[in-house]
């Protein structure tokens, strides 16, 4: 579904991603872990097309199509979804208008008819129930006056409404108490199926107790320095990142880059 090859990216002229390679197949859940500043959020932003992040090398194929040929809206219409680390407040636009516009744009792109108001409303109610969201949320402005937890829940709510093929969760667990974490994870697990795929970006292992990954990768200084199964996350939790860093050092010595 998603194939990342030798991805390099800059923020404000500083190289943050230094050659990422990652293959994500349909039906898989991958987790990327790493300490602060390792490039986790940069990766998420590059994949969704935030123009503040500059790709300097490498390529990404999303369902065999060149991702960097697509603007952010096309990526979304092709089925990519980013659950933001810091969801944006938009005063004056209701969740209903926001989601209806987005959903209809995606459907139009995929040559599907627009949903009728009843169909749309049914979908809203249905998905709100899954996340324990109040129906009245739909008439409120997007994320305005929402607590941190509500904002994260709203991201997952949007995911359930828009039904993307590929979901990027960017630090979705940060700032969530245990109940909210359970609800959010439950939303993800309900949606998870053999036809979609997830990339979970997180600093902490605890989210992975609820959303069990098939693969765990460790990102450090802009590179994936270790990959493994879900047990790798536990190991990281236990030992911290330091042991990896040492190992990475050895790795670099073993295969020096020609720069």
């Amino acid at each position, binding site marked *: 579904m998603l194939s990342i090859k030798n991805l390099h990216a800059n923020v404000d002229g500083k190289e943050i991603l230094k050659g990422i390679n990652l293959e994500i197949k349909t039906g898989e859940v991958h987790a990327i872990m790493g300490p602060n500043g390792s490039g986790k959020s940069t990766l998420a932003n590059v994949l*969704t*097309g*935030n*123009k503040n992040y500059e790709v300097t090398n490498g390529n990404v194929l999303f369902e065999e199509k060149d991702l960097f040929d697509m*603007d*952010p*809206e096309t*990526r*979304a*219409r092709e089925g990519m*979804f*980013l659950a*933001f680390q810091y*969801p*944006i407040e*938009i*005063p*004056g*636009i209701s969740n209903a*208008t*926001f*989601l209806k*516009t*987005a*959903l209809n*744009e*995606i459907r139009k*792109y995929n040559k599907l008819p627009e949903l009728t108001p009843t169909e749309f409303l049914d979908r809203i109610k249905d998905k709100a129930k899954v996340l324990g969201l109040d129906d009245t949320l739909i008439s409120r*402005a997007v994320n305005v006056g929402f607590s941190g937890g509500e904002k994260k829940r709203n991201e997952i709510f*949007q995911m359930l409404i*828009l039904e993307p093929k590929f979901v990027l969760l960017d630090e979705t667990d940060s700032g969530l108490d245990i109940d909210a974490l359970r609800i959010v994870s439950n939303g993800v697990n309900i949606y998870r199926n053999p036809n979609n795929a997830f990339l979970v970006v997180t600093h902490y292992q605890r989210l992975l107790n609820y959303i069990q990954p098939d693969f765990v990768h460790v990102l450090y200084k802009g590179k994936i320095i270790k990959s493994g199964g879900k047990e790798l996350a536990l190991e990281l939790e236990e030992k911290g990142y330091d042991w990896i860093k040492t190992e990475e050092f050895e790795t670099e010595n073993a295969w020096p880059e020609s720069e």
Partner: protein
Amino acid sequence: MEHKNVNEWYVAKFKSFEDKLNGQSKSFLHEIRKNALNSLAELSFPTNRNEEWKCTNVAPILKHNFIPAMISTVPKFQQDEIKPFLFKDFDYHLMVFVNGLFAEELSEIGNLPKGVVVDGLNRIIKNNPDSISKYINNLSKIDNAFNALNTAYSYDGLVVIVPDGTILEKPIQVLYLNSSKDDLVLSLPRNLIIAGKNSQVSVITNYRGYGDKTYFSNIITEIYIGENAIVNFYKIQNENDGSYHIEKVQAIQKKNSVFNHYNINFGGAIVRNDINTLHDDQNIETHYYGLYLAHGKQHVDNHTFIDHAKPNCMSNELYKGILDDNSRGVFNGKIIVRRDAQKTNAYQQNKTILLSKTATIDTKPQLEIFADDVKCSHGATVGHLDDTSEFYIRSRGVPQELAKSMLIRAFANDVIDTVKIEPLKEQINHMIFEHLHRVEIENEQ
């Protein structure tokens, strides 16, 4: 010298105007006209040296020799032709003016409660001049040559009289359609609204242009709001891009009254609105809501004034501007709290979004407070569309242009949301959408 010539032009045209009056030259209004003509001969049109007109250059208006509508040919319209200009999906009493002159055949006033008058000024002057003689040109005083010009040629316009204790359930929709084939026409509506004690009325004034000939709307609207009365006054201005539009609104409010003024501007090359309200007693409420969208080289100037002359009154003002291309906005919000006006609450906000690097806004709050026990606040912000919000919307599949337009409409929303007539609110929203869409199309060309 140019200004002097302009005055002479309009003074010289007065004779042919007078000839058209058919015996009406004996009415009290004619005395007012003649006095105004004297003022017109003496007053200069404002220049940038005048503090009130510092940011608005009217020279492009004065370059033209406009012909007052009365002595020009008035185009004929069919009912179907005016339909697209009307706000619809709600009940209203319809008044139509073509180039400022009452078009009875196009109007549908319908049934009115007993004693309510909804008519053209010229017919009132013929049939019942006493009903308005106390008010017209008494609420508003001539304070510049544009006012003098309107008053000297005052002939027709909207007159609404709502007697004490009467509630007009349906709003009055007033279409001012301006159009000309040959002349550069000068449209001079002279509007008067008198709301008696305990009365309620809503008026929607709807200024539109037809065709692309340059014209000039120079309007005076006088509003008297009696004790305990509620007046909702909407202005939606969508004149032709090449036309000029100047309106002075002067309201006087009596005890316990409420005045809601909505001022929404889309069209016009140079637009100037003066919205003035005098609080003539206690416990008065005034709300000013304004929204303007400008693109190309449009110039939109809103000067608002609330004269807090008496204690225990409140005013609240929210003006928002959306400026693109090389357009320029001007906002001057004057509030005077006089020495007697203790316990005044006055709030004012002006927010502007600049969509291009070359659009400009001059915003100036002007608070003059002479009482000591008052609550007054004002704020002005100028910004650009938020990139982060735009990215967030796009990341959900919404194309960039639509994302921008959603954000702009969101910005306008807290003004539009105050519109009390739901279908009108929707149609104004639609106009905003169309206007933004047109801006995009023009950019692409």
